[in-house]
């Protein structure tokens, strides 16, 4: 190389969706800086939704114009089939979550004001709101997009932080039960930072082992480098800690219930759908691309983690009394089911089917969970959402439609046929059995039988027990209504005619991850 510096080549076209989102986020910040307070939200709402929609359109357009076969941006980002599919999913879910965010009454008037202080009173009376929510959400979504697409560990680390930091803040912005909200923020932040430190150290060690943070290079070096297994094993394990933390796999699940319970429900929805999808994308990329050659050594470990996760999620959920907390545990359990798919690894074609199964499951679960949280926001007491399960008693009589829809989501979680959840589970189990992981599947079905209990319990409450005199009221703002409808539609369609989405997932997974 003769002294001349080559400018890095960036395929802006490929990265367009991400760039759009980030761009919109930055504009949002500028709006916060310069636009007058009364204008802000009316600028933010369209801006956010449009940017997400636009990004989605671009994603589709890209998928149609041929899936690239080699990484972009000097190998930093891999915009491949799975990535595009995940992008699409995340963007839609984010769009839907933003619809939830749009509806009033979720976010604190003034985060800095001490709860119950005169200051807060004033903020409330002024009707002040934190419009920063929108740019923050956009940054988080941007991070979510980059996370599963990142093709080297550094990019992945950055993405991880870009995704998480805004979420830390958003968690603390609940309008009601602010103490809980702040607590959630603190916990999420400390633990998140803690785990990302592990991720980073793992990166460092793998860098030491392979001499590069590029996933493909690491994967290539697995066989080549000798005598450094210590670095490899510790590094891989710590990397795993960081990723498993994000998807809330046992024993790193502890944060999830607290954070989901404390956060503003729309944000919970965003985390439960978007973050999970993104994290799984990243997990798969790391373990299949970088550590694929090590599969013989991590599959057993993943078995353990998967079993532990499913069981913990299912068992702990049974005795929950807070609806959001219960859904959090249920999401842990679902994380476990998804992990079954991660270990259903084998030959090329087997991997493809496993991957497509996972992608389908993620879509199905994402929609259902957003829908469920959307319903949660609508059932309200004097003190905000009616969080305690007992308050839901007899909802089926007072508001049949809402109750029915929620029951439907619960049945989808439980994996009853003719709901999306069923085909999701089915696909993953099928892949696992093909890969010879039948025992894992048995554990899976047993724990989903256990899990069924607490879904059913809620249905019993809503339909079979009589409503309390001062039962909660049900308020359905427009956005939420749309979200509920959309989620229901998705759950039905994926449950009855899953084929189109399956095909989509299949084509996306066909070529696996680019290296």
């Amino acid at each position: 190389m003769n002294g001349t510096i080559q400018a890095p080549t960036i395929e802006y076209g490929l990265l367009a969706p991400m760039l759009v989102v980030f761009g919109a986020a930055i504009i949002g910040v500028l709006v916060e800086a310069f636009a007058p307070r009364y204008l802000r939200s009316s600028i933010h709402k369209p801006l956010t939704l449009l940017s997400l929609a636009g990004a989605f359109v671009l994603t589709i357009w890209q998928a149609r114009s041929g899936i690239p076969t080699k990484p972009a941006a000097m190998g930093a980002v891999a915009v491949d089939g799975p990535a595009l599919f995940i992008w699409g999913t995340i963007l839609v879910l984010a769009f839907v979550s933003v619809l939830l965010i749009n509806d009033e009454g979720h976010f604190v008037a003034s985060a800095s004001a001490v709860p119950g202080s005169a200051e807060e009173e004033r903020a409330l009376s002024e009707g002040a709101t934190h419009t920063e929510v929108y740019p923050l959400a956009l940054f988080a979504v941007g991070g979510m997009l980059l996370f599963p697409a990142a093709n080297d560990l550094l990019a992945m680390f950055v993405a991880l932080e870009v995704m998480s930091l805004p979420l830390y803040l958003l968690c603390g912005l609940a309008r009601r039960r602010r103490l809980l909200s702040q607590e959630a923020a603190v916990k999420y932040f400390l633990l998140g930072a803690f785990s990302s430190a592990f991720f980073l150290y793992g990166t460092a060690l793998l860098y030491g082992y392979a001499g590069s943070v590029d996933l493909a290079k690491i994967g290539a070096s697995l066989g080549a480098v000798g005598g450094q297994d210590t670095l490899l094993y510790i590094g891989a394990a710590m990397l795993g800690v960081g990723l498993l933390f994000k998807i809330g796999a046992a024993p790193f699940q502890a944060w999830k219930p607290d954070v989901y319970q404390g956060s503003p429900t729309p944000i919970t929805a965003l985390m439960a759908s978007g973050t999970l999808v993104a994290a799984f994308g990243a997990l798969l990329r790391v373990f299949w691309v970088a550590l694929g050659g090590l599969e013989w050594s991590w599959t057993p470990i993943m078995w353990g983690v998967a079993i532990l996760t499913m069981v913990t999620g299912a068992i702990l959920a049974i005795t929950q009394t807070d609806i959001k907390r219960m859904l959090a545990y249920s999401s842990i359990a679902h994380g476990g089911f998804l992990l079954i798919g991660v270990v259903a690894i084998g030959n090329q074609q087997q991997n493809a089917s496993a991957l497509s199964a996972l992608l389908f499951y993620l879509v199905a679960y994402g929609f259902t969970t957003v829908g469920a949280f959307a319903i949660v926001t609508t059932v309200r007491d004097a003190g905000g959402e009616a969080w305690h399960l007992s308050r839901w008693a007899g909802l089926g009589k007072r508001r049949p439609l809402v109750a029915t829809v929620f029951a439907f989501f619960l049945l989808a979680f439980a994996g009853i046929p003719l709901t999306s959840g069923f085909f999701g589970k089915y696909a993953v189990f099928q892949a696992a059995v093909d890969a010879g992981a039948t025992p894992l599947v048995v554990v899976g079905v047993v724990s989903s039988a256990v899990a069924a209990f607490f879904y059913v319990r809620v249905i019993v409450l809503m339909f079979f027990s009589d409503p309390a005199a001062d039962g909660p009221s049900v308020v359905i703002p427009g956005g939420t209504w749309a979200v509920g409808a959309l989620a229901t539609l998705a759950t039905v369609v994926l449950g009855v005619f899953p084929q189109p989405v399956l095909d989509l997932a299949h084509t996306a997974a066909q070529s696996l991850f680019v290296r």
Partner: protein
Amino acid sequence: MEPAKIIEHSGGVIGVSWLLIALPLLGAAVLLLGGRRTDRFGHLLGVATAVASFVVGVLVFVQLLGFDPAERRLAVPLYDFIPGLTKMGLLIDPLSISFVLLITGVGSLIHIYSIGYMAHDPNRRRFFAYLNLFVAAMLLLVLADNYVGLYVGWEGVGLASYLLIGFWQHKPAAATAAKKAFIVNRVGDFGLAIGIFTIFTAFNSVSFAGVMASEAHPSQGTLTAIGLLLLLGACGKSAQLPLQSWLLDAMEGPTPVSALIHAATMVTAGVYLVTRSGAMFFPEGSTAAIAVTIVGVATLLAGAIIGTAKDDIKKALAGSTMSQIGYMMLAAGIGPAGYAFAIAHLITHGFFKADMFLGAGSVMHAMNDEVNMRKYGGLRKVMPITFATFLVGYLAIIGFPLLSGYFTKDGIIESVMEHSATLGWLAVLGAGITGFYMSRLVFMTFFGQKRWEADAHPHESPAVMTWPLIILSVGSIFLGAFLILGNRFMTFLAPAVGRPEELPSFHPFSVAGLATLALVAAGAAFAWVKYGKAEVPVVAPRGSFLTTFARRDLYGDALNEALFMRPGQWLTRLAVFFDNRGIDGLVNGLAAGIGGTSGRLRRVQTGFVRSYALSIFVGAAILVGAWFVVGNL
């Protein structure tokens, strides 16, 4: 001489012999479905169908006589009942036709009698419906050409008997007796059913013709097993030991029922079954056949003993029924030599026992349903016809010379003597006891002082009730002689059940015959001393151990209770407990267990950031450790 072959035939009246069953069935259906609307003419319709069926029976009989004796076994195919298992058809032969005539004949008379007897009962129509139902089922039992059909009729009569015993449902005693009768019969049916299974498995057919024609030659053991199983069925239906206990309770039913079902016809079904299957499963001297004779003799003695101690007129008669059927069983057990006598006695018994039961009914009718003979006495003056007819029945049953019972019972004793002296003498002894208890019954009822209740105003029954009595008593006088003399009946029956090579000759002054007469006379005399001359106490004296033994039905019920009921109830309670606590407890326990685990496990989620961090830290350590372990495998 072996039974003749069965040949299909469906011409003439025989072709429509299904009418025999259809007519009473139709009657029953109309009366049951018609409900209150048919109350007015219900009883008449009931009688009509029974009589019509009798007429058909006679016509069939006449047509049958037209055939050459060797061809008097005609199968009338009806329809494919259970494809692959059995067709349904009728078998018209001397045996079945004799039963048909008995059932429809005596049946019709009892129907007529019931018009008067049940006159004041609001549910008379239902009563006649049930009677018709019974007649239909009984006819199916004796006419079916296969064991399944027989079984259908078998349980059908069981149902009818259940309904009729419990006809006065509001009386708990009646309801209980009905249930008991059905259940005890079911125990017998259990044997019969398994017997039929074995037959089907052994011969791959359940029709009489099929079994006879079958090439299969099952082992002797199998045949014996079948025989014993059928015998168990017979014991249930015919109230033979050890399944006798239900018959005495069955007297809770209206008296015509006791006469028709529990004296004349249904209870003799066992004898029919044994005779019908005799050639195949009870060959002379086989284990099964011996078992039959033993059961028979045991029952005839037991029944007689019970009869001696009962003060309830119907129960006394029931005891005697048991005993008489015991005779028939005994005869049937000794093979072709005995079949004719068994059936002949069955027929004559049908007449005189029905006669006496109806007589007893007439008495009860007069004494406002009082059944305790100690409260009767001296009734012969107030109800002469009843007395006269009853007297005929009485003489017939004790075997007074030249009356029916004399010929048939004597025939049985003679032929049994030929077969085995021991059994023979026991039979003779039985006859003696019969002489005693029947005389006791007559003396207590019709002779001696009036011991009536204050409000009793006995009177003779109306003609509709007395005429049947008269007809029956006529039968009780002459039928025996007609059937036995010149072996008329044996020859007639031969095609159906076979007969011994040389026909027995009737000699009136045989040792056994004279001994019987002597014993009977002694018994009667003893009864006269105790109950005729002497004053009969209105309240029964405590009596010796033997008396109590007899009064308590030889502790049959006590035994059942100790052996089956108590343990049964105990077992039931145990099972229920086990089901709730054991199996269901396990299920709910599992659920509770999971719940409890959850309750305890969630405590791990302490809410302290640092403990969460710890879990992550430890988790990481474990992950690293695990990776090393796996990596270095």
